[in-house]
């Protein structure tokens, strides 16, 4: 397999893909109109990014408060855990296709469908993270005169940051992955390249795949960095 990797065809493909990203190419299908190039790549990347962030925002809006509330109260554990498990089982392609067929295409509908994918990991992880904060620490906080909300804000959330972020990152990965096939629901994204070999050629397909991978990795890095920023040094010492 290493041999196949290093052989000319594979390398040539990568070269062709990189060309595609940066310079418009001639296409056999569209008859004269060029495809690819930096502008188009950026346009589709931004479209996918926008979609991802919108869906993530919606997921957070729904799942975060609920998870915080339930986790602090300690109720609804079964619900949160089961939802987390069920969320993992949702087949993305079926979800998108069904949504498109039943409700219709468009950014709004797709955002809601993507949020459906993002809510379970965020809800489950938020619940578990808050609920698993050491009871003695919460007792001390309550006993010293913090209100319930202060306990959540000053004690439980900071101590749950790693788990919370695990949920957000998981949701992001699922959403980015599904946003890639947004074209099936009539929304532009890098999936246009990946699914459109006829139009964009094999170079376009590979280029799309590379850019999607980079997009996903960049988001992951960004969240990882944010997490490190928000994690108290005291926590890092404890787990060392």
């Amino acid at each position, binding site marked *: 397999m290493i041999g196949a990797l290093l052989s000319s065809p594979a390398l040539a493909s990568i070269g062709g893909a990189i060309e595609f990203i940066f310079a418009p190419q001639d296409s056999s299908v569209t008859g004269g109109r060029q495809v690819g190039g930096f502008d188009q790549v950026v346009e589709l990347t931004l479209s996918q990014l926008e979609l991802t962030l919108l869906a993530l925002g919606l997921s957070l809006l729904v799942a975060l408060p609920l998870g915080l509330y339930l986790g602090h109260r300690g109720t609804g554990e079964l619900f949160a855990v089961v939802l987390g498990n069920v969320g993992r089982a949702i087949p993305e392609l079926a979800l998108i296709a069904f949504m498109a067929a039943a409700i219709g295409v468009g950014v709004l509908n797709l955002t809601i469908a993507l949020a459906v994918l993002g809510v379970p990991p965020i809800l489950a992880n938020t619940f578990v993270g808050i609920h698993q904060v050491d009871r*003695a620490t919460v007792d001390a906080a309550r006993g010293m005169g913090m209100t319930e909300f202060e306990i959540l804000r000053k*004690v439980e959330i900071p101590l749950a940051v790693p788990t919370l972020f695990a949920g957000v990152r998981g949701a992001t990965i699922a959403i980015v992955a599904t946003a890639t096939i947004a074209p099936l629901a009539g929304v532009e994204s890098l999936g246009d390249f990946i699914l459109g070999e006829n139009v964009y050629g094999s170079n376009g397909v590979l280029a799309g795949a590379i850019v999607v991978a980079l997009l996903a990795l960049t988001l992951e890095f960004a969240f990882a960095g944010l997490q490190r920023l928000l994690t108290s040094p005291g926590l890092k010492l404890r787990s060392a």
Partner: protein
Amino acid sequence: MPAAEATSQTQSEPGASSVRYEGATKRYGDSAKPAVDGLTLEVPAGEICVLVGPSGCGKTTAMRLVNRTVDLTEGDILVGGESVRDREPARLRREIGYVIQQIGLFPHRTIAENIGAVPQLLGWKKERTAARTAELLTLIGLDPELGARYPAQLSGGQQQRVGVARALAADPLVMLMDEPFGAIDPINRERLQNEFLRLQAQVRKTVLFVTHDIDEAIKMGDRIAVMREGGKVAQYATPAEILMSPADEFVEDFVGADRALKRLALMRVSDIDLWEAPLAHVGQATAEVRAKLAAPDVEVAYPLLVDSERRPLGWLSARDLAAETVPARPDSPLGPVIERDDVMRDALADLLQGAAQYAPVVDAAGRIAGVLSVEIISEFLGSSRAKQEERSAVERPHD
């Protein structure tokens, strides 16, 4: 009204309130048996009241009723004359120090931030909080520099002390302590108990102290409430009275068969006139030391090696004294070292444990204050002064 708004002095100011239980009752759900049953007692301001009893007797619940981490079913509790029912729980708790067994330090905050937690809730200015934090760290015997560390970097004993400091930070009117030294090894526990008593002598807070250990109760308490299952008080009296006149069979059993021995906990080493040992310094001419030994009024026949701060280092033997100058390493090790604030019981235990004839007694700073032996203790116990002390201990609380 809240004393927390007063200046942050730790001595003399009456920053303490009395706590009065009036028929306080707590029932959980539909259960017929209450966890706390009609508790009525008064803790005068500035005193330590120990709630002691077997597991499940409701002592922790009774304590938690005061800061409303558990709410009353019937009856009332007055802190400084004001009913706790009239106060908003969160605000009430900011005026009451709260120390729990597992400590519950915030792992994500520095020691200084932990200590400053309640001041921050009360809106103190940063400088005031910082000054208070430094003051408290010194008070509990920790290097103020440790304030920048995180709980994970401290030992268990240090964390426990920080827990106490955190409770004291906003100069509360009342302190609630639930088995605060329970999770510590016996040696450090003794030390922490002594430290806390020293602290209390300075700050004079009203303390509700929960423990299952009768020895700890006798040592720490100005007054003890022995509780039995069902949340009732079997006897509420000074430690001496409980030891000498237990109210019923339950109290007698709970105190234990070695009641007489426990009375040794009512007195402190500082109550005794200690003997003096001749002191020697490293490098001193042994001739001088031998001269001291030969003096007619010498009480202890062995010289004690001390450092420049008068802290004991070891006992000198005849072989040590045969040299020209006093050696740096004495022949005999130090053996048990007794603190002057130790209760007699602990001192006797240490002496017997170390199988030493004499043990050096040091003050709070570790400097030599005298020498103790079993002989000295038994002489003292037989004296009329000791009997007088005991009798008066029945009335007044520890001092």
